[in-house]
């Protein structure tokens, strides 16, 4: 492995964290939170100095092969979490460093799982940093770096592949840098529109911004103890719309901007995504209304749709405590947790495109048993899917199950009930946030042991980076010189 390239990239990432701390620093100054301002200023200067010193010697040629690309991505995510956790500890918001790292990883991976019992009295700048980490993590730290700095000489495709979700990551314009920029421009546009919408709906600018960061990053950190439940129906509806938007493959928006409506419409994944969303919401609404938990059919549908969108996009906001809903609704929500959003979105989970490929492979396998000489390919978006992609999706499913089972076993050592342990792993590995029972919408992760927290942190990172980059970091083969 080329260590000097990895070193250079990692220190560049540290420098970037320093620059990003500028925003919470400004917030601290605006709200006159002197202690927090000092902390953020210290972090800002510290990170930039460390980063600048570490990346002072630029390797002659920055060529990233697959291995280096994956290692750089995985390490960067760990490093940003370790550094990003410091403000929580230094401001005294979260005294334990492990808890702070958990909270930060949960932020960057857009999980939204919290170890805090309450967030009402939190410093505004720290709260801002907490939600801002969702925004950064949503589209990806390294993609952001590639968009603004010409770092990689030849091709950073492997980094893009490691960081962007989906079974086959492609570019939308020929150059990687332009692709990264285009994605961030779309992302920025959506963010801006939501801030304005929420602002108009009656939130103050600070709340509008922080909630927007949590929404478009599909994260789920709320800024009050009541989650999103305390806001008006209009605000909640706006959040539903933007959560749903951010769970769709961003290349669809690129097609729409460039007026390629036919290409946008041909996205199978998006159709499945919306059909599943409205179908599940209707079923849950009926289920909840018949159980007599909510007074009107309209309100049932509103809250059901909110819960379904929130879970499917892996945001994890809550308006109602769905832990108290009937068993069918709870189970359906946990099932949706596992599927997640679309590839190429800011959402997590297994992804609809993988599900489509798996289901269609199963169909082809059945045909193959009935007609042993038949040859069939898997189609998606009107095109044949590469054999290698099909293979990697199957492998992904395998790895996913293995990690799930092992994590579940370790977490169950804490002795909590089956639902809590099972959904805690589901909610972190899929970057959703809330599960059921103790980790339900009104609960949190504070009672888990340190071991379980570490496992869940690993699950969050593995889920966000789609398993392989993190596993490669653990493989001894990676570190052999030859």
């Amino acid at each position: 492995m080329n260590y000097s390239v990895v070193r250079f990239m990692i220190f560049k990432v540290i420098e970037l964290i320093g620059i990003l701390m500028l925003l919470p620093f400004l917030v601290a100054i605006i709200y006159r939170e002197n202690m927090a301002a000092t902390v953020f200023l210290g972090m800002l200067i510290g990170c930039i100095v460390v980063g600048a010193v570490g990346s002072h010697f630029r390797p002659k040629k920055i060529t990233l092969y697959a291995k280096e690309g994956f290692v750089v991505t995985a390490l960067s995510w760990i490093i940003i979490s370790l550094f990003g956790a410091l403000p929580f500890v230094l401001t005294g918001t979260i005294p334990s460093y492990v808890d702070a790292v958990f909270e930060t990883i949960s932020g960057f991976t857009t999980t939204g799982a919290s170890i805090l019992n309450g967030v009402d009295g939190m410093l505004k700048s720290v709260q801002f940093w907490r939600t801002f980490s969702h925004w950064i993590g949503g589209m990806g730290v390294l993609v952001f770096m590639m968009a603004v700095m010409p770092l990689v000489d030849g091709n950073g495709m492997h980094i893009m592949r490691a960081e962007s979700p989906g079974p086959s990551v492609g570019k939308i314009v020929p150059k990687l840098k332009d692709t990264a920029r285009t994605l961030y421009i779309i992302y920025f546009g959506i963010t801006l529109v939501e801030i304005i919408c929420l602002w108009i709906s009656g939130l103050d600018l600070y709340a509008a911004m922080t909630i927007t960061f949590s929404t478009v990053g599909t994260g789920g950190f709320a800024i009050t103890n009541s989650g999103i439940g305390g806001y008006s129906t209009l605000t909640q509806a706006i959040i539903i719309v933007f959560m749903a938007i951010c769970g769709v493959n961003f290349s669809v928006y690129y097609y729409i901007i460039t007026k390629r409506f036919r290409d946008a419409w041909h996205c199978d994944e998006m159709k499945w995504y919306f059909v599943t969303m409205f179908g599940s919401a209707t079923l849950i609404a009926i289920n909840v209304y018949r159980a007599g938990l909510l007074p009107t059919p309209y309100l049932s549908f509103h809250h059901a749709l909110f819960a379904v969108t929130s879970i499917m996009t892996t945001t994890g906001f809550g308006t109602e405590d769905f832990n108290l809903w009937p068993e069918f609704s709870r189970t359906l929500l946990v099932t949706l947790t596992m599927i997640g959003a679309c590839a190429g979105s800011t959402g997590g989970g297994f992804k609809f495109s993988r599900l489509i490929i798996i289901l269609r492979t199963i169909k082809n396998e059945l045909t193959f048993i009935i007609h042993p000489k038949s040859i069939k390919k898997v189609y998606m978006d009107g095109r044949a899917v590469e054999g290698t992609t099909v293979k990697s999706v199957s492998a992904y499913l395998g790895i996913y199950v293995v990690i799930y089972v092992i994590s579940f076993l370790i977490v169950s050592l804490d002795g909590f009930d089956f639902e809590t342990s099972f959904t805690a792993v589901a909610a972190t590995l899929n970057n959703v946030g809330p599960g059921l029972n103790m980790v339900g919408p009104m609960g949190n992760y504070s009672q888990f042991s340190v071991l379980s927290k570490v496992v869940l942190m690993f699950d969050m990172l593995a889920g966000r980076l789609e398993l392989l980059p993190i596993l490669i970091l653990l493989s001894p083969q990676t570190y052999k010189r030859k």
Partner: protein
Amino acid sequence: MQILIVGCGNVGLTLIDQLSKEGHNITVIEEKSDVIQNVVNNYDVMGIVGNGASYSIMKDAGIESADLMIAVTNSDELNILSCLFAKKAGNCSTIARVRNPIYKKEVDFIRDELGLSLIINPEEAAAMEASRLLKFPSATKIEQFVKGRTELVKITVNEDSRLCNKTLKEIQAEIKSNVLISVVARGEEVFIPDGSFVLRANDEISVIGTSKDTLQFFKKLKMPTARVNSTLIVGGGATAYYLAKSLIEAGIQVKIFEKDNARCKQLTELIPEALIINADGTDKEMLFEEGLTRMESFVSLTNLDEENIMLSMFVKSVAPKAKLITKVHRVNYDEIIGSMGIGSVIYPKYITAERIVSYVRGMSNSRGSNIESLYKMNDDRVEVLEFNVRKDSPVIGIPLQNLDIKKGVIIARINRGFESLAPSGQSMIRGGDTVIVVTTNTGFHDIEDILQK
């Protein structure tokens, strides 16, 4: 520029490598998905799997906003067809590789009536390069600039040469030539020499000058300057056909060895003046019988790289004086082959790619840069640039010896109107001149870039 490349064989790859380095936005269309996978992993380009002549695939690749489409698949017809489609769909410039000699006569029609910007025939281009070398056998490479008014000729310094073990100053005083020794390659190293540089045996030097000057320079060195009188070509493919045609027009005797009887009959109909021999070129006895040792030059043009290289090495051992030209298809090992001492090596794919790249550079130059042409040599480590000098450039009106020029930069030629001047310390550049600069620093955009900042 937005460039679409259809077909990703050797030429396509060389183009992608070169053009992506120069910062163009490239989309590649190719039918084999594993090839695309590989290209996308190694270069910053977008890949699309599919048939390049399909309109919907072209639309996917963004033909509407493309500036240029280059079709270099194996099939001539597909190349022409995709150019036609691109022309109608996107109103861009188009370049096609067309190699079938049958279309050779129709080239003008295809270009003018079908609206293609450039048609390139790799075999013909390779043959032309070989022919140029046979007409000037001392050189290992000849390149032309400023519309042919200036030449860059590469030669190797022999042990008994007058150049050997002398500084450039001494050589200049002794020979008083108008040419400039601009690049010296010694083993792995490349130098831009100054006056105190000492030449050694086996150095490969590049001299720049008008063709008259270079001719004189070689005469003074007592190096052979006359064209060869006879040549033996092994392998009777398309390249051999073009080469033989061109040599016969220049009055050079040509013998062609070809294994395939039917092809021999075809060849003799096409070029009755050449002597066609139906025999395997690797048959030593046959070669001797046909007077190999008396031949002044030998060209190996079979379809197998290995066979060509072996043949040339063999001929070198039995006829050390003969001028050797070897055709090699695979471009990956050019450093090793270059060091084997088998004379001039021609890479048809490389020549094709180079021609297209220089066309692309010309296109992007007309959009604002001041580079008229750019030529790379010695594994891309040396650039020869032709700059247009603007009227307000800071280099104007100062004697060259007073200009603070970067290391590894040499001003090789100043062209003014129809004149081409060999610069000296007192020469001055004027606005409107074209200046040829040779440099080991890459990435110059303007003549100003040669100055120390």
